[in-house]
């Protein structure tokens, strides 16, 4: 395999290793080669662990040679968003305030992936503390979008999605407090799942907003996301993955009830014409597979979900980071400072009332799933130019992500085509609490019926001189 061949999916790596067509180090090497060649321009990594990754793969080679059965993720290269603690590997949150931070303990998710045979190849770029960005006054400049390096890969799990799209890793663990897995997955044409709040452990993850934070799997396909989710949710008393998320991936969609919150789409946050056309085409395809689309989704205004999230997040961010803001504000980027300082101007009464809104909105969301199996809506707009944004933008924006952080539902982003400029479009599939298996089933069948996954960023498949780092300093 050469660096120009399409990157292997996790499912293909699994099959190749189980059938002994390939050793773990052979599966890993093309990913490391691509990282060497391309990460100077993509900047998906804050810290590379390529050397230890190859050592670990060679140990796995020996295990296979002596007849030991492979684990579910043996030979699978993954990255961790750089807010996820890794013992002996620095974890910076892309903040100058944590430039030399080397944790003593691994986060639970890292431990589970290692136990499943996965190989850490690096710590993935993030907006500062998974919140403020894109910024140029933090530890490292922002990651670039592999489809067009002048475009924004979105955030905050930017390096996770960019690395997967560029074929520098097969999976990554991102975090999602207000869309930080789904936004980058949409912008970079990858697949990302924000699980039900509480399904995946956040122990050992630097908090953003502790009552809203989730971590979840990102990969190239829904099938790969399902495989990683099984590894992340394996019980301590179990020796093997449950199959809970991969077993029914091919289940028929006949009779599936899809709800579409048209009030959000038509009135509050109308998508562009190209996104709306692709979304309508996706719904027609699913109807052709036996699903029914229903429009009577009676939800509160999107802005109410968004304001509830922002109020809670402002206070929790301030609570977590007030110490640094007081003692060394110059070590934080401007974007992050402005956003977290907002929490200083919310009273305790207002914070708790925002949680009351959250309670009510979560129950409302739960109730509408009595009539639907999944909700669907576009994930967002295609990637725009990578440029500094006003810090206030995160306090004023309105997107289709935060509602499901407030309600706690699982939400997955997957490809739904490309726009006229060749940038990926994305659809969001939302399920009942803890119904990740159904969400993954719908996504997998939809991916199977389309060929969007056959397309990779052209910059990564062209044999061209990658040269030095891009000169796109802003």
């Amino acid at each position, binding site marked *: 395999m050469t660096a120009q061949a399409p990157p292997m999916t996790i499912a293909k790596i699994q099959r190749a290793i189980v059938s002994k067509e390939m050793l773990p180090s052979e599966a890993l090497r093309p990913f490391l080669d691509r990282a060497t060649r391309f990460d100077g321009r993509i900047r998906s990594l804050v810290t590379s662990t390529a050397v230890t990754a190859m050592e670990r793969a060679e140990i796995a080679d020996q295990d296979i040679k002596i007849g030991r059965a492979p684990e579910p993720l043996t030979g699978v290269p993954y990255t961790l968003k750089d807010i996820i603690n890794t013992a002996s590997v620095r974890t910076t949150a892309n903040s100058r305030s944590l430039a030399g931070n080397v944790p003593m303990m691994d986060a639970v998710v890292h431990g589970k992936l290692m136990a499943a045979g996965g190989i850490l190849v690096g710590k993935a770029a993030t907006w500062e503390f998974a919140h403020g960005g894109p910024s140029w006054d933090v530890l490292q400049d922002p990651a670039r979008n592999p489809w067009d390096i002048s475009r924004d890969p979105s955030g905050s799990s930017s390096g996770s999605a960019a690395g997967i799209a560029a074929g520098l890793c097969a999976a990554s663990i991102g975090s999602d407090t207000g869309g930080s897995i789904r936004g980058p997955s949409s912008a970079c044409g990858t697949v990302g799942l924000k699980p039900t*709040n509480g399904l995946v452990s956040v122990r050992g993850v630097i908090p953003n907003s502790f009552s809203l934070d989730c971590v979840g799997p990102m990969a190239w396909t829904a099938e790969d996301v399902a495989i990683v989710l099984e590894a992340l949710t394996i019980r301590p008393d179990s020796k093997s993955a449950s199959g809970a998320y991969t077993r029914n991936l091919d289940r028929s969609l006949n009779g599936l009830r899809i709800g579409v919150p048209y009030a959000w789409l038509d009135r509050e946050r109308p998508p562009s014409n190209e996104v709306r056309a692709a979304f309508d085409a996706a719904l027609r395809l699913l109807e052709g597979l036996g699903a029914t689309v229903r429009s009577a989704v009676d939800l*509160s205004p999107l802005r109410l979900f968004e304001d509830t999230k922002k109020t809670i997040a402002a206070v929790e961010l301030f609570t977590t980071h007030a110490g640094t803001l*007081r003692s060394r504000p110059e070590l934080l980027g401007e974007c992050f400072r402005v956003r977290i300082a907002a929490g*200083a101007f919310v009273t305790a009464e207002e914070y*708790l009332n925002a949680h009351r*809104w959250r309670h009510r909105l979560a129950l409302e969301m739960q109730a509408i799933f009595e009539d639907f199996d999944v909700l669907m809506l576009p994930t967002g707009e295609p990637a725009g130019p990578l440029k500094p944004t006003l810090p206030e933008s995160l*306090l004023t924006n309105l997107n289709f992500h935060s509602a499901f952080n407030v309600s706690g539902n699982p939400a997955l982003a997957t490809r739904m085509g490309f726009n006229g400029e060749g940038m990926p479009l994305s659809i969001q599939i939302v399920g009942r609490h803890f119904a990740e298996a159904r969400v993954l089933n719908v996504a997998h069948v939809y991916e199977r019926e389309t060929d969007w996954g056959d397309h990779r960023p052209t910059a990564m498949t062209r044999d061209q001189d990658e040269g030095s780092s891009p000169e796109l300093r802003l």
Partner: protein
Amino acid sequence: MGRLRYLSTWPTSASLIARRAENKTEALMWNMSDDEVLAKAKGIGLSTKAPYDQELLRSHKHIREIIDRLSADWPHEAQPAFSFSSIAHPGDK
């Protein structure tokens, strides 16, 4: 449940004045002059030197706009927090 009322009742100047007359805490937080915002920030240990002073004023302005919309129709249940026990026991709201 708020719903469209949430959008239709975004504070007008008249409703703001009326609400702030009822809710002194909210009025205190919103009606603060720039000097008062910075004094409060300084009082809780935040630096108010440039450029942080202007940043704090921006933070205050934007979060108070959000709270203004949200507080127009606060829910009044006793239970303040979302709980996943509501999933396990859906009838027990």
